[in-house]
């Protein structure tokens, strides 16, 4: 394709959120020719919305805190399908990564002794669940994601990272040997499409909460990296595992941090009862998010919901007092006023479980290398392809992520991927160049949209997709409903393949970006639906009426969705941490 301009980098990082910027920082310092490609200016990435904090055993609140306790909580929280080698790596390396952020300038809140402020979050314990509630989440008020993302962007400026801001990655370029050797990308401002050649392509594209009608996620969370990887034929892991955050603001979907409950807030039903005492007698409102979300839905279904329709519950914060709210939760006060029209110092916030986080994603090892699996069940590294952050499934979150673990995941594995790629580049890697036809196949879908002459409209198809996912793949699931959902998605895929992009102009054409995003939403939705239908048990966030129990005999496994055949296979979970004993699966109670 001689008419395409090409750009060449040692490493291209797709995505300018927390994990992408952390990986980029490592590579920029190494002097490798690196660029970050982001569809929005980096500080507009969804990491900016993270509120409550970054969970890590830095032993500030409790000098005896231990990363092994954090690892135990993480593995238990993930309902035992988190990979224990990965959880071990994240929890033990975590303190280093958090101190680095502080050294870079992150304005953490402080304790009287000058150390970083830590607050209690859900699913946290001391002494392997025996020592009561821990306070392990390092916070910058309730704006930790904003503080973290800006700090990382600032340090990338300091280290002269190259940015391709407001560029959109369209598809991966794969060579004849199946190695990933770059991508096709579009400059949004000019509409120019280029071929980016790189020895390492890092997908740091974040989550895809926009497959649901109601989500805490930014409008840009459309699973672009997941879509690209699936179209390139690579498998996705644990895509049935979607976290519904207990406290999205009713109606608006905007997030209210778990830190509210960490600071002493609690949920009440229409009778004013603190109902979590019934469902989780020990941890109460600080049980795992999956447990709290299900309990809320039970309250609503049993007629104890609040409001005219009885379709939400309340989060009570007024007893904390204006001073604590102003100091520790100022962003929540703002959001409640804007989106719920209440002042939490006086009235409770109406909340409802809302799609929040994708535990699944591109399977990787702890170095961020993407993995696929052969017919006999052996893992293979995909040459040239890396993933980190929410787009990746290392897996540290298993079937349910603990609050505060996503920011830690971003910085630990962004950093790990950066360090590994630097080492690999130093050793020297060369792959076969892409051929004309390899590039053409990566150009296929943008060409399809550009040549579309009629068909259904993009916003309507997107709304239908979101409605299907909301109806059939929500907090509680069952076969009949999911089968209907899968059928509807199959039809929708055909319709999207024939949909229409009316605006073919070049300059800042956001309609074209939304068309390309719709393809990605479709890929993510399909992988989610098929994985959810096939996992015939209840585990973590995946909860089925027809299979209400966890089935460790058959399903103590990752699921792996293969796009070419639309088959779901099983992949072994790692139970071999290097320095601690295996945490054996137990019944999970809070």
């Amino acid at each position, binding site marked *: 394709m001689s008419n395409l301009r090409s750009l060449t980098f040692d490493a291209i990082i797709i995505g300018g959120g927390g994990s992408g910027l952390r990986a980029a920082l490592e590579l920029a310092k190494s002097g490798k020719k690196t660029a970050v490609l982001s569809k*929005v*200016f980096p*500080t*507009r*990435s*969804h990491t*900016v*919305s993270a509120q409550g904090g970054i969970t890590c055993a*830095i032993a*500030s609140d409790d000098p005896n805190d231990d990363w092994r306790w954090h690892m135990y909580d993480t593995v238990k929280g993930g309902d035992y399908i988190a990979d224990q080698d990965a959880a071990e790596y994240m929890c033990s390396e975590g*303190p280093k990564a*958090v*101190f680095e952020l*502080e*050294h*870079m*300038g992150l*304005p*953490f*809140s*402080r*304790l*009287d002794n*000058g*150390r*970083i402020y830590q607050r209690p979050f859900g699913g946290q314990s001391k002494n392997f669940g025996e020592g009561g509630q821990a306070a392990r989440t390092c916070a*910058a008020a309730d*704006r930790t994601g*904003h*503080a973290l993302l*800006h*700090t990382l962007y*600032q*340090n990338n*400026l*300091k280290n002269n990272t190259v940015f391709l801001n407001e560029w959109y990655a369209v598809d991966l370029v794969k060579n004849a040997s199946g190695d990933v050797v770059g991508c096709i990308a579009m400059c949004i*401002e000019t509409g120019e499409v280029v071929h980016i050649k790189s020895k390492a392509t890092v997908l740091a594209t974040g989550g895809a909460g926009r497959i649901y009608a109601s989500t805490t996620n*930014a*409008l*840009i969370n459309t699973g672009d990296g997941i879509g690209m990887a699936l179209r390139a034929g690579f498998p996705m892991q644990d895509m049935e595992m979607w976290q519904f955050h207990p406290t999205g603001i009713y109606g*608006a979907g*905007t*997030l209210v941090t778990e830190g509210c409950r960490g600071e002493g807030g609690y949920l009440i039903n229409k009778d004013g009862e603190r109902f979590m005492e019934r469902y989780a007698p020990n941890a109460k409102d600080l049980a795992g998010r999956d447990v709290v979300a299900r309990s809320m839905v039970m309250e609503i279904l049993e007629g104890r919901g609040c409001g005219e329709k009885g379709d939400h519950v309340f989060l009570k914060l007024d007893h904390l007092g204006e001073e604590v709210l102003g100091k520790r939760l100022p*962003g929540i006060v*703002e*959001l409640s006023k*804007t*989106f719920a029209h209440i002042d939490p110092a006086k009235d409770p916030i109406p909340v409802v479980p809302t799609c929040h986080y994708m535990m699944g994603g591109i399977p990787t090892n702890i170095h961020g290398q993407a993995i696929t699996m052969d017919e006999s069940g052996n893992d293979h590294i995909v040459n040239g392809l890396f993933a980190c952050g929410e787009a990746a499934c290392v897996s540290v979150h298993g079937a349910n992520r603990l609050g505060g673990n996503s920011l830690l995941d971003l910085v630990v594995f962004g950093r790990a991927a950066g360090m590994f790629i630097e080492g690999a580049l130093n050793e020297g890697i060369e792959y076969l160049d892409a051929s004309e036809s390899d590039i053409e196949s990566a150009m296929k879908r943008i060409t399809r949209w550009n040549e579309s002459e009629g068909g259904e*409209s993009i*916003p309507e198809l997107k709304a239908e997709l979101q409605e299907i996912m909301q109806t059939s793949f929500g907090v509680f699931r069952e076969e009949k409903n999911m089968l209907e959902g899968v059928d509807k998605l199959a039809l929708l895929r055909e319709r999207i393949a024939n949909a229409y*992009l*009316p*605006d073919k*102009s*070049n*300059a*800042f*054409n*956001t*309609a074209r970006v939304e068309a390309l995003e719709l393809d990605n939403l479709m890929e993510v939705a399909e992988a989610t639906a098929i994985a959810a239908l096939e996992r015939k048990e209840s585990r973590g966030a995946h909860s089925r009426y027809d299979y209400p129990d966890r089935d460790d005999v058959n399903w103590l496994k990752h699921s792996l969705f293969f796009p070419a055949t639309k088959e779901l296979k099983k992949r072994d979970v790692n139970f071999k941490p290097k320095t601690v004993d295996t945490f054996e699966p137990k019944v999970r109670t809070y």
Partner: protein
Amino acid sequence: MSNLQVSVYRYNPETDSAPYMQEFQVDTKGRDVMVLDVLHMMKEQDSGLAFRRSCREGVCGSDGMNMNGKNGLACITPLSDVVKNNKLTLRPLPGLPVIRDMVVDMGLFYKQYERIQPYLQNDTPAPAIERLQSPEERDKLDGLYECILCACCSTSCPSFWWNPEKFVGPAGLLQSYRFLADSRDTATSERLSNLEDPFSVFRCRGIMNCVAVCPKGLNPTRAIGKIREMLLADAT
């Protein structure tokens, strides 16, 4: 507020020889939705309408724009705050070159941000744990670090309109003071010497448009005042 009358600035460099205002009728079904919701409804009528948006909750800073004459974030501005006589006029942030419709070229704004070296500088070796900072020292960063770089302030500032190349502008100066105020930063004198010319800081005339429009309730004018004090103390 059914059938809201919206007038929107349109310009596509490929097809329009000059910008123009386009009229839309939007049925909000009587709800007090956000301006961003109205933009999405208009985009369903005309997919070519271009505007930036991301978080839709006022923390990413993508959708700064001019709504009935006042800069703000479309996603956290309810119609009841801005609409008068059922009319809403939307224009891009003033003073920056327009790329298309509501999308402006933020290059100059970012350049001024980069100029103040917006990162912590500390020439002492980092300890094995975090650098300590007392809660009182940390309190000094409140009202500064929360900036979301939406550019509502700088693009409402006449001094920035006149001298966008030389005057840092309220957003950049707020961030400059965020680092000057940080007990962990050791580059105070270098930071000040980068600002001591007649334009970088001293072009601020205390008009305070920045304070009036900041969607996060921050006060760049106060921060600029503090920098002035530091510069003057430094000079004596």
